[in-house]
């Protein structure tokens, strides 16, 4: 199918994809009894995947001449679906993130889950999740992506509910799964609509069809785009389907890092960037405003949370809002760039938080911590770097990617979203450093904090690696790669110093206001929380603080509206099933058969001659029809 030397090591991507799956299978089937062997298999699979990805990229560069490798899979009528892998800058970069950051998280889990009884099951689920995520990243058509999409849903369900003996973990897993299903329903409808209108599911074919005729989707382009966006809404936890993500913190902390930093929630943004050509201007507007609103909402909620993981979870929501906003502003480059840097620093923050939680013997309330700087020096430094990168401090990675998004808003003359973005940048700094000051500075707020201890090297080494990338992530040419992927313009690589100051020359307004927001947020956090023993904000903000603390009552709102509606529909369906399907349809057939049987039973008299008579009668009837008619 391909000319001979179009792509070197064509089998490598397949190996990368299926290594984690076989690891999950081997662990589940053979090594569930041995925790150490299981964890080593799982870690080995993902690290090997990372190495193979590096080899593949070294051999082919980031944009291989032929960007797909396919096996024909399904051919029904005029529906042809290939089981194919898309290999371009976008997917290779994501593969690097998933295997690289995921690998660091796997290694960290070896230490974090050391005491857990079901460590083997944990690693099997982690491998399954990695496989599903790689499936989304590498898929070259909507159907394959949807299958992997659902697999991610299932494996995240397994991971969030890993401690299923806790009712809250089981509930959180169900909530995540069902909320995602809602989004997936729209996604599937969107996929069917696209197929119906364009007759193909392959990304490349769709793109060339739409390039040839930009009106190919016709009047329903906006609806199709928004339905596809529903999928991203579920996976990337955008308003109004954002409620599952904070609850998903019930899973072990490495799971939070894997699912909510590097991979699952990034899937939605990745999918949007992959299929950006499908969205028209109206759809993108809706996407941008939903992203902006989610970012604002989540940042406000994060300010008043007291659980260390929940604060980071709402921060993730807020940053995802940023990315979706960037996509909506027709800027896939800053969106993917922010996704990449966010994967580094958010995984770092989650894993550092996990280190704190382990050091505090599974205490998660930040008001029970304090002064951990002395007890946990490595975690302190890595957390600080992660926090600075998240807040967007020059020259850490977060600054460059966040600035890219703000500059995009300026370029699109979307000043409302720009102001929103700057405001959220301030809020981000505020809640991040509120968390940081309360946990690491000040007085020990509980006896447990005085006895906290640093985590083992198997946990701190991944932290250091992630911290390194959080620092330099903005300067190693990631943005250039994405820019090259989304527009064919090739630009000369800028020098290091030029890259360092590029944001200030490119869009001075965005860069300076972003830094100003950081300074204000940091000053506010310092003045209120540097030595606080309790939270001073509720007294200042009153009712607003209570609303933030209670997540603006979204759970209660859904409890009061969506759930009764759902129950009502379920009751109607139950009635329909019980009386129409069971009663009328099945009941009539069953009753008719029963009655017929009872009547035919009367013919069984046991009298030999009756039988003989009926037999002859039957022969007579047959003869009549054969001979006379």
């Amino acid at each position, binding site marked *: 199918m391909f000319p001979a030397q179009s792509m070197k090591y064509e089998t490598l991507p397949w190996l990368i994809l299926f290594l984690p799956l076989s690891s999950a299978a081997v662990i589940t089937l053979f090594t569930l009894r041995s925790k150490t062997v299981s964890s080593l298999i799982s870690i080995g699979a993902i690290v090997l995947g990372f190495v193979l990805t590096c080899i593949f990229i070294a051999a082919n560069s980031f944009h291989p001449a032929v960007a797909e490798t396919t096996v024909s899979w399904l051919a029904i009528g005029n529906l042809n679906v290939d089981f194919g892998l898309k290999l371009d800058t976008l997917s290779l970069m994501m593969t690097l993130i998933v295997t690289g950051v995921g690998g660091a998280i796997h290694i960290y889990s070896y230490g974090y889950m050391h005491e857990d009884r079901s460590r083997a099951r944990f690693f099997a689920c982690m491998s399954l999740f990695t496989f599903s995520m790689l499936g989304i990243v590498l898929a070259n058509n909507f159907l394959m992506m949807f299958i992997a999409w659902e697999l991610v849903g299932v494996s995240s369900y397994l991971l969030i509910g890993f401690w299923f003996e806790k009712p809250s973990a089981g509930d959180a897993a169900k909530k995540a799964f069902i909320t995602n299903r809602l989004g997936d329903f729209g996604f599937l409808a969107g996929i069917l609509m696209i197929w119906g209108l364009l007759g193909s599911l392959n990304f490349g074919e769709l793109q060339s069809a739409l390039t040839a005729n930009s009106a190919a989707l016709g009047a329903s382009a906006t609806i199709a785009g928004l339905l596809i966006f529903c999928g991203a809404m579920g996976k990337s936890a955008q308003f109004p389907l954002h409620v599952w993500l904070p609850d998903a913190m019930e899973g072990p902390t490495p799971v939070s890092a894997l699912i909510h930093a590097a991979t699952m929630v990034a899937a939605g943004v990745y999918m949007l960037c992959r299929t950006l050509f499908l969205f028209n201007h109206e759809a993108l507007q809706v996407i941008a405003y939903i992203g902006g609103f989610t970012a604002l909402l989540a940042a406000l909620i994060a300010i008043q949370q007291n659980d260390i993981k929940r604060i980071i979870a709402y921060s993730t929501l807020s940053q995802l809002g940023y990315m979706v906003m960037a996509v909506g502003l027709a800027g896939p480059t800053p969106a993917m760039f922010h996704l990449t840097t966010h994967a580094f620093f958010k995984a770092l923050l989650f894993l550092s938080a996990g280190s704190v939680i382990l050091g505090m013997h599974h205490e998660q309330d930040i008001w029970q911590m304090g002064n951990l700087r002395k007890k946990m020096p490595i975690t302190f430094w890595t957390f600080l770097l992660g926090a600075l990168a998240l807040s967007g401090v020059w020259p850490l990675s977060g600054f460059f990617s966040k600035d890219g998004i703000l500059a995009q808003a300026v370029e699109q003359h979307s000043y409302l979203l720009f102001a929103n973005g700057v405001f959220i940048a301030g809020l981000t700094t505020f809640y991040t450093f509120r968390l940081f000051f309360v946990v690491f500075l000040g007085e020990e707020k509980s006896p447990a904090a005085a006895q906290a201890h640093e985590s083992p090297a198997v946990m701190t080494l991944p932290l250091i690696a992630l911290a390194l990338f959080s620092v330099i992530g903005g300067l190693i040419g990631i943005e250039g790669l994405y820019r090259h992927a989304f527009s064919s313009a090739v630009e000369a690589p800028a020098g290091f110093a030029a890259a360092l100051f590029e944001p200030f020359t490119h869009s001075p307004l965005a860069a300076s206001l972003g830094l100003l927001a950081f300074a204000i947020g940091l000053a506010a956090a310092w003045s209120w929380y540097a030595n606080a023993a309790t939270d001073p904000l509720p007294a200042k903000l009153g009712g607003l603080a209570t609303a933030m603390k209670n997540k603006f009552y979204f759970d209660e709102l859904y409890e009061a509206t969506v759930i009764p509606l759902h129950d009502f529909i379920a009751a109607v369906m139950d009635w329909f099933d019980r009386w129409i399907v069971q009663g009328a349809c099945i009941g009539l057939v069953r009753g008719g058969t029963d009655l017929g049987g009872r009547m035919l*039973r009367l013919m069984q008299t*046991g*009298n030999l001659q009756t039988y003989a008579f009926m037999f*002859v009668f039957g022969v007579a009837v047959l003869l009549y029809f054969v001979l006379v008619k």
Partner: protein
Amino acid sequence: MHVGLHEYLTVSILLFCLGLLGVILRRNLLMIYMSLELMLNAANLALVSFSRFNDRLDGQVLVFFIITVAAAEVAVGLALIVALYRKRQSAHVEDLTSMKL
């Protein structure tokens, strides 16, 4: 009066119907049995007459087979009826309804 195929077949049908009525109406197992034989012989008669009027011997050969098999069948059937009579002290079909549900 000329006796042709038609007349032979008429006799055969009459014999067959007599046998059938006997099977359906008589109550005694032995009588039913004899009526059955009557039906067999009606068929034999039809076969022989076809054979004769078509100048072919197939029918007559078949009749020899039927007679042989019928002889064997009579032996078995009578033995069954005798065994049944010894068991039930009756050879009437009304008494033989134990197969009824």
